[in-house]
Structures are given as C-alpha cells and as structure tokens.
C-alpha cells in the first residue's frame, strides 16, 4: 500500500528541485517539524546537497489543543540556526492530515522573523484538511479510512506503518 520511503524521498527531491528552479529560489532553508519531519528533512537535506544546517521546530508550545490536552510530555527545543528574515523557508513534515500542525509551525516560524516565503513538503498526505493548507511537494497521497492512521517509524531505517486506531469507547 505504501511505497518504500527511499522511493518517496527520491521523488520528493526531484519535485523539489523542479519547484525551486521554477520559483527561482537558490538557497532554501530547510526546517523539519519534530520528530518525523526532522527525519524526512535530514534525508532531503542530503539529497539536495545543502550546506546550511537544518532547522528543527517542536510545535508543542503552539498547539491549538493545549487547553484540552495539556503539555506534551516530551518537548524538544526548537532550533533555527539561521536568521528567518527574508529567507525562503521549506517546512518539512512526515504526514499532512488536518493541517493544524502546519498552522502551529507557521505561527512559531513567524515568531523568529519574517520569511520571504514558506513552502511545504510532506512525505505523505491524506484527505481530511481542516484548514486551507496545501503542500507544494508530496511523496505519496494515501487514501485511508477514518479509523486508520499512518505513522513514520525511524530514524534508521525509515518506514511507514498504517495502524488501526482503537475504536473510541
């Protein structure tokens, strides 16, 4: 059902090169969203041969379900080892579903500065958007049932699993 992750990553890297050249962007800054997005971003970073270190975002402090769910127990520090102002940022995540994670990531990003543009690349996208958010580069589109979830396991090797959610009791 899912293709090998390395195939998806090669496809994403090709699509990214095309997209960047169409947009005349020569120096994108990659930012992975913890945890799966960082793994994907590391792979793309290698395939695109970028020199500048990767940025990493943990969006725990920007989630919209904090008052319901509380603090995520394992928050990792965000680190953006470059100035965001006037940069073309490529956000990278493993799965695009509701779009809420990306909304939170963009809010956090803008607290670091004003980027020239923000693009989105995801390994997998599935239907179910709750916000007007769209990826420019997608590894694979998956059709999943409502009770199914796709998870990226890693970091070595990277593998996509489709898991059955427990029925709500």
């Amino acid at each position: 059902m899912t293709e090998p992750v390395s195939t998806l990553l090669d496809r994403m890297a090709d699509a990214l090169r095309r997209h960047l050249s169409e947009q005349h962007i020569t120096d994108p800054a990659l930012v992975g969203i913890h945890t799966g997005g960082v793994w994907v971003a590391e792979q793309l970073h290698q395939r695109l041969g970028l020199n500048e270190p990767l940025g990493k975002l943990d969006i725990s402090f920007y989630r919209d379900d904090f008052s319901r769910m509380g603090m995520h127990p394992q928050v990792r520090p965000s680190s953006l080892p470059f100035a965001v102002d006037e940069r073309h940022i490529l956000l990278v995540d493993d799965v695009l579903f509701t779009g809420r994670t990306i909304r939170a990531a963009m809010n956090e990003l803008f607290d670091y500065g004003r980027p020239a543009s923000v693009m989105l690349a995801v390994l997998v996208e599935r239907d179910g958007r709750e916000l007007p958010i769209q990826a420019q580069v997608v590894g694979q589109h998956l059709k999943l049932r409502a009770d199914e979830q796709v998870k990226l396991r890693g970091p070595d090797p990277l593998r996509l699993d489709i898991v059955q959610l427990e029925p709500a009791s």
Partner: protein
Amino acid sequence: MINQDNPAGSRPAAGPLPPSLQFNAQGRLRHLLTIEGLSGALITEILDTAESFAGMNAQAVKKVPLLRGKTVMNLFFEASTRTRTTFELAAKRLSADVLNINISTSATVKGESLLDTLRNLQAMYVDMFVVRHADSGAAHFIARHVAPHVSVLNAGDGRHAHPTQALLDMFTIRRHKGDFTRLKVAIVGDILHSRVARSQIHALNLLNTGEVRVIGPKTLLPAHVEDLGVHVFHDIRAGLRDVDVIIMLRLQKERMESGLLPSEHEFFQLWGLTEERLALAAPGCIVMHPGPANRGVEIDSRVADGPQSVILEQVSNGIAVRMAVMSTIMGGSVNQGAGA
C-alpha cells in the same frame, strides 16, 4: 507565624499538608505547593520542558501562545522583587494576563480575611494564583479553597517550601553537571529558616543525587535534619572538600530570632564562602545562591562575582523553569480522550 517550630512541614499548625492535594483525580499536576510528592520523572519532565522554553530566547518574539486568555495573579503577602518579576515575565511570555497584588499594603490592612480576599479575587475570573506568604502552609490553605479550575503555585511559604526555586536550581545544576547520581552537593548556611534548602534537599533526593551535605552551625540547622537523608557538617572546610556544587543560603536576618549567632562578622569568619574555601571543592565546582546575597556575610564578593559563580544564570533560568511549571499545571484542564 504558623508552624514556627515544625520545620519540613512535619506537623504544620495550618493542618496537614497532603502532597496529594497537588494532583487531580487523573494524576495530573494541578497545583505546585511543595516538591514532596512529586516523582523524579515528573521533575525531569518539567526540566526538559524548561529547556525548550530557554531556547525561546533565540526567537525575535519571545512569547508563545500557550496561556493566551488566562489570567495569572501574583499574590504576594511578603516582599520579593526577583521572584515576583520572574513569575511575571514567565506568565507574560506564555501570553497570560498578569496582575500583581501586594497584599501587605492592601486588603489585609483593612481587616479583610485571607479567605474573603481570595473569594473576591477569584470572582475576577483568575485562573492561577502565584502565592508568596510568610506563613508555612499558606499556599496549601489557598489551594484547598479555590474553585476546581483554579491552580495555585507556591512562590514561597514561611519556612516550608519554595518549589520553583528548587526546580530552577536543579535546572542550573543539570545544565552544568548533567547526571546527578555522581554529584556531591553542599548546602551552606542558615538551613533552619530556609524554605529554599528544604525544597532543594527533596528535589536533590528525588533526582538520586550522589551525596547531599548541609553545612552550618547547630543553631541554624533544624532538629533531625539527618532524617532528610543528608550528611551534616559543622566545619565548613571539611564539608566543602571535593563537592561539585555549593549552594550558599542567605542569612535570613529578618526571620532571625535573637541569640542564634553572635554577629554577621563572626558568621562570615566561620561560614562565609571565600576563594580560599572554594579551592577545597572539586575543580569546576559551581557556586549558587538563591539571592539576594548578603555580601561579606555568607559570601565574599570575589566569589559571588567570580568565574565559578552561576548566580545570575539562576535568575535567567528562573523564567524558563517557571514557564514550564505554569504550563504544566495549567494545561489539560478539560480532561478529554486523546486526539490525533
């Protein structure tokens, strides 16, 4: 003063101080009143969260929206600049609205009872009280009487506890020394009047610190202090030998009953931290002080301002740690099932 003669909250006059009061039915931390009753794992989780908040200093906008729309009230019945200011900054960086009430100059002067004051403030839709009070057990008392959705954070009560100070000290130690299990930590000075020392000892124990020493004159050590699992030294030179961390305490002059020590000068001669005494500690030993330091009483200026001092770092770390505590006790107030 409540609990004048019962240190460590063993038999407080304000009634029992059940650590369980801090947790809700789902086991989530709702109030932070004391370090007792927390687990080492929870402390580590709070320190990890604080580490992420410390990273926020790289942001142009040093603010996150976690507590947007929440109201935090700093309820200070006892003066404090550093603690109140860092609590205020922490709440503001979490996007909460903050009010500072200095009670000693307000309602109680007009004869209003603590409970009446509390009910009035609660009627203003406050979500969290940060409480500093000269009486041991004051924060517990308030936690027992607030509405179910309101959280209480103890910012120091009498001689009992100052949990966020202990957590920020653990954060500072961890940043410099890493693993607690191999550390020797010495707490020096007026342990008897120090809520900070009590909270620090509990936190160090929960983090499995290799050895915790307390150093001070008999008159400034609580009775049965050994029961807290510490080694007691009445000679500062012996006590400081090979330690990795020295925590100097402030001589609590305003809390001091007369006759406990002859003079400040003599205190410095016997217990003050000088460069010469610091040299007895392990190489790279860090020097901490919860502030404000009495220079020339418990610590020499050359040590307080010297290369091994991390006193100002403690102040900065206080913001990140208080943010971590506030967001931990304020999150998930509506208990629902896990979402995606």
